[in-house]
């Protein structure tokens, strides 16, 4: 793989990306920026909460209680089921944007996430949102480093050269 061990992690500049949305274009931007920062030799952490957890979910039905199961139904699917924030049209918008992206040889979300992981981007999930939405750790992809909360996020943000939220 790539030699990323030239500089110790402590010497690297940091970036933190906060993702609360599960919309296609926001995930697209979040992963693209994470990849760009990592390729520019930054130490990048991404924190996913609420609808953003879609980006880390396995393709499994989630939720145990009635409401969480309803949510699991409405929010079914993994990163490949992310719909654009506009023009959803019951999935037609997603189909169309995926077609357009493919025809222009642009990476899809799953590829972007894979590239980010290859470049050492660290992904964290919000423990509270996981609890509320009843999405246990086993239903997130194995690559998730850990679940965390606001205290951790504030520390990351303080140490970061930039933070973005989507």
């Amino acid at each position, binding site marked *: 793989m*790539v*030699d990323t061990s030239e500089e110790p992690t402590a010497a690297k500049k940091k970036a933190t990306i906060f993702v609360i949305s599960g919309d296609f274009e926001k995930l697209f931007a979040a992963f*693209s920026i994470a990849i*760009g920062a990592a*390729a*520019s*030799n930054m130490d990048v952490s991404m924190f996913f909460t609420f609808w953003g957890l879609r980006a880390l979910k396995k393709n499994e039905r989630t939720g145990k209680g009635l409401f969480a199961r309803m949510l699991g139904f409405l929010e079914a699917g993994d990163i490949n089921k992310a719909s654009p924030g506009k023009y959803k049209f019951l999935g037609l918008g997603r189909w169309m944007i995926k077609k357009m992206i493919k025809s222009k*040889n642009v990476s899809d979300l799953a590829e972007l996430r894979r590239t980010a992981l290859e*470049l050492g981007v660290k992904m964290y999930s919000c423990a509270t949102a996981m609890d509320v939405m009843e999405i246990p750790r086993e239903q997130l992809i194995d690559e998730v480093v850990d679940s965390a909360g606001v205290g951790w996020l504030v520390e990351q943000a303080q140490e970061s050269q930039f933070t973005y939220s989507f």
Partner: protein
Amino acid sequence: MSDDIKIDLELDLRGLRCPLPMVRVSQNITKVPVGGIVRAVTTDAGSLADITSWARTTGNEIIKKERVDKDIVFLIKRSK
């Protein structure tokens, strides 16, 4: 032209879109020794600015960048 410069690695990045051209450059720059030259060819219009910024932020050097028809050709020197 670039005939007098020794190219250590050729990267054909034509067809790749943002952010992949700069990612591929960053993944491959360590394959040449410090001081070595990577020649990268892209078609993504954004890569002109992207790879230039990437070089600045990572401390590498763009020896040359030029448009040749629809291609953008970079000569990048690994500086560290």
